[in-house]
């Protein structure tokens, strides 16, 4: 089976851009990725586009604007993991020998305010049970209880990621913050304060994938060692599957753990081999929970991992050197591929002040409603 290389990446910054359409952002990201990969019209045989709010034929509209159509163009929706799902499909098609070169991108303009999700039934909205921050708050409270996490830990995750984000010109927030400032922001849903929640926003990201044996040596190709998507096993009441009830059991693995286990196996490596991680930090507690579910520490060990300084830039295993979603904001269809773009640049050594020195193995993680959990492992 052939390997898969990432030969080009492109990004439209994440933020709020009045007057710039979903298509405009997608065009910018795809054009940049194609240019970097040296691929033009006729140079790729399929395209997969992640988007949740983009609407009908989002991917087609982007490629039509670039004058590059005729190949299959498939829009993929998997909540926060939409980009991971698109990447999984593209990589599998190349591995199977179906295509040599595939463009994968995500583009999104999120509605303003608390995310309105068609996932919920109308009665759930009417009853006030369609509050995404409330589910984040409940999950955070349980994690605090089981892992000895305090509000100070939650605030320090924000401070860390915002410090990283201050060095990322593509992030929405490029200003550092303090524990005091985080804890002084208003409570949205206990224990989460406003600064502990990421902002839904806008942006786009794109990759060109190529059969590894056809990839040119410049820019230095990065190998896509695994791209895995898994859905949930029912049971946990606060799972991202967002059920109305669950079992009084705590031993059912999370979708992130299922996905990570499969990705480590596919890549033939494990958590100790990783040099840099971009993980889902839709809220501050989610980053800590992600670290546990990905096996970056023991279950219950995420507070100690944070306390050790390992996850800061300069530490043993920097987590979210891009600033994470807490700095970048979250455009659903683009967020997962935005992480992968960051990691490809990290592995190439292009990240300037936020560079993780000597990084050769990287993992990205997203998990979203459904539940869908995506884990991607990159090496060079």
């Amino acid at each position, binding site marked *: 089976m052939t390997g898969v290389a990432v030969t080009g990446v492109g990004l439209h910054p994440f933020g709020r851009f009045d007057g710039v359409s979903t298509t405009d952002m997608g065009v910018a990201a795809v054009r940049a990725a194609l240019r970097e990969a040296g691929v033009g019209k006729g140079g790729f045989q399929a395209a997969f586009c992640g988007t949740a709010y983009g609407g009908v034929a989002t991917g087609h509209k982007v490629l039509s604007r670039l004058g590059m159509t005729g190949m299959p163009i498939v829009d993929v929706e998997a909540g926060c993991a939409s980009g991971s799902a698109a990447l999984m499909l593209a990589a599998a098609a190349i591995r199977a020998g179906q295509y040599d070169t595939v463009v994968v991108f995500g583009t999104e303009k999120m509605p303003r*305010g*608390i*995310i*309105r*999700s068609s996932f*919920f*039934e*109308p*009665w759930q*909205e*009417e*009853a*006030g*049970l*369609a*509050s*995404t*921050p*409330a589910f984040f*708050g*409940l999950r955070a*409270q*349980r994690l605090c*209880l089981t892992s000895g996490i305090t509000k100070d830990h939650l605030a320090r995750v924000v401070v860390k990621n915002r410090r990283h984000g201050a060095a990322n010109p593509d992030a929405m927030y490029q200003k550092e913050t303090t524990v005091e400032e985080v804890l002084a922001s*208003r*409570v*949205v*849903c*206990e*224990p989460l304060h406003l600064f502990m929640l990421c902002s839904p926003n806008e942006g786009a990201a794109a990759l060109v994938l190529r059969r590894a044996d056809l990839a040119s040596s410049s820019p230095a190709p990065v190998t896509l060692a695994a791209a895995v998507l898994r859905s949930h096993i*029912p*049971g946990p*009441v*606060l799972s991202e599957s967002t*059920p*109305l*009830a*669950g*079992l*009084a*059991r705590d031993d059912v693995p999370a979708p992130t753990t299922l996905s990570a286990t499969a990705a480590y196996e596919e890549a033939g490596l494990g958590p100790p081999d990783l040099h840099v991680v971009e993980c889902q930090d839709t809220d501050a507690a989610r980053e800590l929970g992600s670290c546990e579910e990905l096996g970056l520490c023991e279950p219950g060990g995420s507070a100690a991992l944070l306390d050790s300084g390992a996850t800061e830039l300069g530490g043993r295993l920097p987590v979210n050197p891009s600033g994470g979603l807490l700095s970048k904001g979250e455009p659903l269809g683009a967020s997962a591929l935005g992480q992968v773009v960051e990691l490809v640049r990290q592995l190439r050594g292009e990240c300037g002040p936020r560079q993780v020195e000597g990084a050769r193995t990287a993992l990205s993680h997203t998990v979203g409603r459904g539940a869908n959990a995506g884990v991607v492992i990159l090496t060079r």
Partner: protein
Amino acid sequence: MRVMVREGLFTDPDAGPPALLGSRCAACGSVLFPRADACTYCATEDPDPVELSGTGTLWAWTAVTAAPPGYTGEVPFGVGVVELPEGVRVIARLTESDPAALATGQPMELRIETLHRDDEGNDVVTYTFAPSRPS
């Protein structure tokens, strides 16, 4: 007149103490809420309809401080998870909207509360949990 926010979630609010309407799977014994066509856990079809216990213990809680999409009732309001003796954890509104007034493991009881009045003058009601009254 009182109308349910959705039929089939709980018993007639005008007919005695309320109960949530769930199912029990004859094959694996799991208890489901709400009722479903097949067991969520083992996929066995047509689980048996049951009424769930009206009392349980508090497992997680928070308060919603800004109206979520599509919601026209009052804020803040409580949301939490209550564990019932059948081995099921249920997400529900809570009558208590001050998180500091609640504690893990606290006894809770099922109630019916009014969300808002609809265009035809009916009170739209749903299920909620309240701290149990001292007995």
